[in-house]
């Protein structure tokens, strides 16, 4: 099934929450605010906080803390290392998706009801 898959997965961003965070940060904005990222990813504050610390420790994400008045604001951005890892992982996922759809396509029932 994975015969056509040549790209390599990145085990660190394999869990879907980390993939979501990196994928959203890579999309086009330079820095994304914590609340915007949380709402777009549809995850809780604590999950995003925990995962962003792990991604920061791995060097995939840069975190900058600031404040607007008394309100603290945290901004996140994908590093070059994070971007490279994400590109490789997304390439692997896309190849995997293609391989899966190709293999399910070849298993469609034939005219006599049998599997081709």
């Amino acid at each position: 099934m994975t015969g056509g898959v040549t790209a390599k997965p990145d085990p660190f961003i394999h869990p879907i929450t980390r993939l979501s965070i990196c994928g959203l940060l890579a999309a086009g904005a330079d820095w994304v605010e914590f609340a915007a990222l949380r709402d777009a990813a549809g995850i809780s504050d604590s999950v995003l906080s925990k995962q962003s610390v792990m991604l920061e420790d791995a060097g995939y994400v840069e975190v900058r803390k600031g404040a607007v008045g008394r309100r603290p604001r945290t901004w996140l951005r994908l590093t070059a290392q994070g971007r490279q890892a994400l590109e490789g992982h997304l390439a692997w996922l896309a190849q995997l998706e293609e391989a899966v759809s190709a293999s399910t396509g070849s298993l469609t029932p034939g005219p006599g009801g049998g599997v081709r």
Partner: protein
Amino acid sequence: MRDVARDPAALELLRVQRNRLADRLRPPWWYLPGAAIAWAVGGTGEFALRYLPRVDYWAIGVAQLAVWCLLQWGLARATGLKVGPRPLRVLRDGLFYYRPGRPALIAMFVVSLAVGETEFLLIRHGRVAAAIVVAALAVVTQVVLQRTWLQEIRQALRDGGAAA
């Protein structure tokens, strides 16, 4: 934690999340009128040079830049996304690093230069009315380009940008 390999819709989920993020990048009501003010301030430079010799030409440029920075700061605060140009990033990432909305930004820069030169020539030849018309048209063009710039970034957010 969910595993991507067990979730065949992982890429689809990422697309949905990107769309959600892109939807946040809607400029507030004051953004485009503010942009018009910034470009109008810039457009007065050539007139000031000719008719208001006491006003420093560079002070007008600085004022325009200040309004533009204020707009970008407000946009980041309102949307939670920092999308402004980062000219110094070229030093770190090279000239051709990925940057959504770059064509519109380059167009804004080119229009600024062209309008400045045109206004200068028209004022020098005494065609002040024509120079005012050019300045007004330039403000409209720049606002349209600024809107296009945001639309390009929004589209990049939907498509996944460099990591698509």
